[in-house]
């Protein structure tokens, strides 16, 4: 085992030009995948920040006892998908309306009586923020006893949820696409490297080298190239991220940008090793057949 790593390292040094190219290719592929992941993580982080503000307003029947109101709130909290339930009294609602109306707030002064109902403001649990679930929940809340009407910011809600849906779809599709494309490119590069060394492989076989003996160092190299390339790509990505993050901060820091979560970094790193290994595997199968 140690001997194989040894041979792999010696071999990488002997063919440093080829190895450098593979590592650079892995690094750039990882950079691309990582950049996309980073963008996606930040954009969807931003969106989910906003979706926190999506809420269902459940307006209550006028003549409920405080007791009944409280028990209704409890029932809402118990419903699946409900995150946070806040009571908004009719007095508070009028105040909010007044604040929101700016210019026109003068006209509220002429009111004799508060025409607004009590209400519950319901926020959803994170996992449930998609349109179908949201609408289902709204319908169920509307069916509760004591709820006279349900309102939720139709227009904005739909936009938000649609963009999240789009992001999810495009994100998964593009993530998969990028990863596959990167894996293909890396495999192709390794294949080319092996191609330019096919004579050497052939000679080792003629010398009575067993398959494991011949392939071992190549797998090892694939792994190492993947690891090196992955590390280099991540480092470049982090550099680029710092640059953009600084720009954003200059621009007023209006957006909460963050780097990839640790488990994703680890995942991409392991992914790059797997890609290196797979590249060797596929190429070796091709060349060592005959």
């Amino acid at each position: 085992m140690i001997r194989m790593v040894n041979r792999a390292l010696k071999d990488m040094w002997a063919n440093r030009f080829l190895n450098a190219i593979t590592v650079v290719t892995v690094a750039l592929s990882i950079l691309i995948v990582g950049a996309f992941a980073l963008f996606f993580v930040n954009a969807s982080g931003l969106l989910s920040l906003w979706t926190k503000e999506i809420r269902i307003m459940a307006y209550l029947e006028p003549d409920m006892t405080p007791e009944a109101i409280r028990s209704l709130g409890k029932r809402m909290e118990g419903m699946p998908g409900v995150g946070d339930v806040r009571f908004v009294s009719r007095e508070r609602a009028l105040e909010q309306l007044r604040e929101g109306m700016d210019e026109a707030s003068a006209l509220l002064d002429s009111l004799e009586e508060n025409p607004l109902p009590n209400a519950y403001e319901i926020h959803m649990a994170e996992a449930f923020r998609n349109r179908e679930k949201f609408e289902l929940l709204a319908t169920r809340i509307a069916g509760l006893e004591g709820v006279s009407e349900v309102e939720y910011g139709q227009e904005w809600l739909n936009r938000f949820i649609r963009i999240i849906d789009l992001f999810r779809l495009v994100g998964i599709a593009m993530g998969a696409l990028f990863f596959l494309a990167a894996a293909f490119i890396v495999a192709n590069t390794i294949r080319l490297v092996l191609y330019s060394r096919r004579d050497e492989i052939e000679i080792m076989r003629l010398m009575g080298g067993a398959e494991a003996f011949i392939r071992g160092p190549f797998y090892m190299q694939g792994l190492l190239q993947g690891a090196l390339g992955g590390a280099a790509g991540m480092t470049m990505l982090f550099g680029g991220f710092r640059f953009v993050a600084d720009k954003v901060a200059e621009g007023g820091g209006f957006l909460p940008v963050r780097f990839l979560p640790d488990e994703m970094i680890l995942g991409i790193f392991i992914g790059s090793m797997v890609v290196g290994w797979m590249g060797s595997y596929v190429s070796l199968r091709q060349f060592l057949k005959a």
Partner: protein
Amino acid sequence: MAIEDSGEPIIRLFHVHKRYGAKKALSDLSFEISRNEFLFVSGPSGAGKTTLLKLLYLGATVSEGQIIIDGLNLSRIPRRRIPFLRRKFGIIFQDYKLIPQRSVQDNIAIVLEARGAPRKTIRKKVRSVLRTVGMEDKRRALPPSLSGGEQQRVAVARAIAGDPQIILADEPTGSLDAEAAEVIFELLREYHRRGATVLVATHDAALIRRTGGRVILLEGGELDVVTTIPRLPA
């Protein structure tokens, strides 16, 4: 450990044919090679000498017929056993087949590494075979920086590094001057004395006469004659 020529065959060919597409490279060859024989394969350019050696180490497979080496039928040998077959051989290729990116000593070490020899043994053996062919001072050089004759000597060193039972030498002195060629031939004779079976493919009649031995003469892929030529008195 000098072993006598026991007469027992180590290699047997039965009606061997080899075709490349429509081209017949070898036709209906049948003969036996005894254990510890020193045999020449001769014939003009394109006669099929290299092809014949190739069939023995499974560098190519027969189109028809059977080859049996040391009791093993080459047509029936499972793929993963091929390396073990090849380790019986020490092969000097006509085009040397050195790995250009690796130093001379690494090129030779690889034969021993493939056999799983311990590292110290490898180092000693590599030195010793390089000394034998007079290439010790070039052990760190890469093959493309060697002269033709120097490359050929490295190829010889590699072939004997594994102390093979059978030495297949394809034109082993084509790039060497008479003196260096004699050194190599003396080496082959030395391994022969120590028990190896030696098969030399060459078109050089003078060389055959100098050494003597049985000669398989090919002509256009067919067995022309098998004769035994006595060693020329020096």
